[in-house]
């Protein structure tokens, strides 16, 4: 096979459509694994077996065991649960809060709008991980804490998006037309402005799933938020650090999982953006 032929096949394989399908399949399988985790493995993620620590890959333990003899496959599967759940819930929290604040800031002029936008700016001026570190003091550990912390730190992205969308929509004549037929402000927001925000919101939401996942992993790696022994991918990388030279796979596998899911979310977001709202290209 000559080089140009290779290049051609490569091109076909990696065009948008195929990539989107692959990422969709990757995501679906991770979600499936997360849901049916107890069916995949007979072990519990917390079940220790110190006599069998750092076991090599075998039929019993496909990916081996960690320093406490826990099955790595099991911990990866349960880790998927935590990571997916945390990123999904935190993105939802952020979307709801951001949508409401963005609508208010965009539709009503004056002090309230200025205040909301400046608070969003202030939040955006604090580096993301610094913000989550500080907020985690407030919300404490556990899934709820992590969801709130990540959710709040993602809010400004939604506020800014919705604010911009509302402003650009208010310029459209259909908002004026609705006013002229006697429609109230509240109805105009709910019936006309809100539905037209949704396509862009969905795009941002999908992309933020990846961001949330990354933040959760980073927090877990630092040992804040969701703490051991609860299985998380970030935490697993952190735990395997000390035995890196002997058992590198223990660090590489969970990292690979994070990367696959985040990349899949991003590609899906790109695809959705091109399909739903191509104007966002180059902005998100």
């Amino acid at each position, binding site marked *: 096979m000559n080089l140009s032929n290779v*290049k051609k096949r*490569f*091109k076909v394989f*990696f065009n948008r459509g195929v990539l989107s399908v692959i990422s969709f399949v990757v995501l679906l399988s991770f979600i499936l694994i997360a849901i049916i985790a107890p069916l995949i493995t007979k072990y519990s993620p917390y079940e220790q077996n110190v006599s069998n620590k750092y076991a090599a890959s075998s039929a019993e333990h496909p990916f081996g065991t960690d320093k406490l003899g826990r099955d790595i496959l099991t911990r990866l599967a349960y880790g998927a649960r935590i990571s997916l759940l945390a990123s999904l819930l935190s993105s939802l929290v952020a979307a709801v809060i951001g949508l409401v604040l963005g609508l208010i800031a965009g539709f009503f002029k004056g002090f309230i709008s200025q205040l909301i936008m*400046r*608070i969003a*700016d*202030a*939040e*955006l*001026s*604090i*580096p*993301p*991980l*610094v*913000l989550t*570190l*500080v*907020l*985690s*003091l*407030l919300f404490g550990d556990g899934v709820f804490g992590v969801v709130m912390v990540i959710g709040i730190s993602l809010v400004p992205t939604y506020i800014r998006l919705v604010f911009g969308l509302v402003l650009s929509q208010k310029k459209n004549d259909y908002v004026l037309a609705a006013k002229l037929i006697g429609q109230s402000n509240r109805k105009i927001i709910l019936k006309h402005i809100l539905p037209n925000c949704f396509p862009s919101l969905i795009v941002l939401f999908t992309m933020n799933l*990846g961001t949330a996942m*990354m933040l959760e*992993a*980073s927090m877990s*790696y*630092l040992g*804040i938020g969701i703490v051991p022994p609860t299985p998380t991918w*970030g935490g697993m*990388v*952190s735990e395997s*650090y000390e035995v*890196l*030279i002997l058992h*590198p796979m223990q*660090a*590489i596998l969970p*990292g690979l999982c*994070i*990367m*696959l*899911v*985040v*990349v*899949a979310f*991003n*590609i899906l977001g790109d695809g959705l953006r091109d399909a739903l709202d191509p104007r966002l*290209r*180059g*902005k998100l």
Partner: protein
Amino acid sequence: MLGYIVKRLGISLIIIFIVTVFSFSIIHILPGDPARIALGEEADQAAVDALRAEMNLDKPITTQYVLWIKGILHGDFGMSIVEHRPVSRIISERLPKTISLGVPALILSVSLGLLSGIISAIKRGKFVDQILTICTTLAVGMPEFWLGVFGIFLFGLKLHLLPIQGYTAPSADFTQFVRRAIMPVVCLAIHLIASINRHTRANLLEVINQDYVRTARANGIPERTVILQHSLKNALIPVITMIALQVRVVLGGSVIVEQVFNITGIGLLLKTAVGNRDYLIIQGCVLILSMITVGCNFVVDLLYGVVDPKIRESWR
């Protein structure tokens, strides 16, 4: 010009004010008495009360805030309750390390990101573009800590090319600084390189479809000039915004990267302080870091005028 600067400065100050209120109140909503944390569970109540008085904790919360701000304006961020040293001194010891890694990371990502983005756009759909697209897509999804761990494993432990941990100041030993900084800098820059590449590519492709690019082509301007002059300058404007927004991501990344490579910069300081509830350090770090971000954004706002004559017009 002056009016514009004053306006941007005003907005920056408002943002910093909100940040101070935020970081101050978060710490004070938290349960637990800082004086008690400082002295330990066994200390007697009288000593705790004395410390509370010394730290102004017995005063009303607004007075505390005003005193804190007053101190900051005099360069006094208070005393660390764990290290018993001035916060300002601790931060000034730590900050240079973070910055000496952050600045090269920014330079690396802007230069590499822009260059690869332009190549991607010119060769859109071609083999090079496909490769770059795959690389950047993967890079965006790569956790910094994992890349760091992977780098330590490969270049440090397996190949013995680079030291795996620690930090040397560039003034002390520059070669050693470079050897130790390579991996942290790459880790800090990886996400930013990828996103600058994506943005540059997307914006350039968008601009290439504009009417004025068609005019340039219709007037026989060579394709290279069309892209490097007519399109790039227009495409850069949104990219600059995006870079300004991403400065904070690099600073945030330092928390992770400093943990991975055991560099005692401001990120690691903050992480430790959060663990210790050393609240004046937390407040100080948050404030300093957000001031750096706001400052960068301010500079970028001014930079706009260089690229966009419309903004320059509004300065007059």
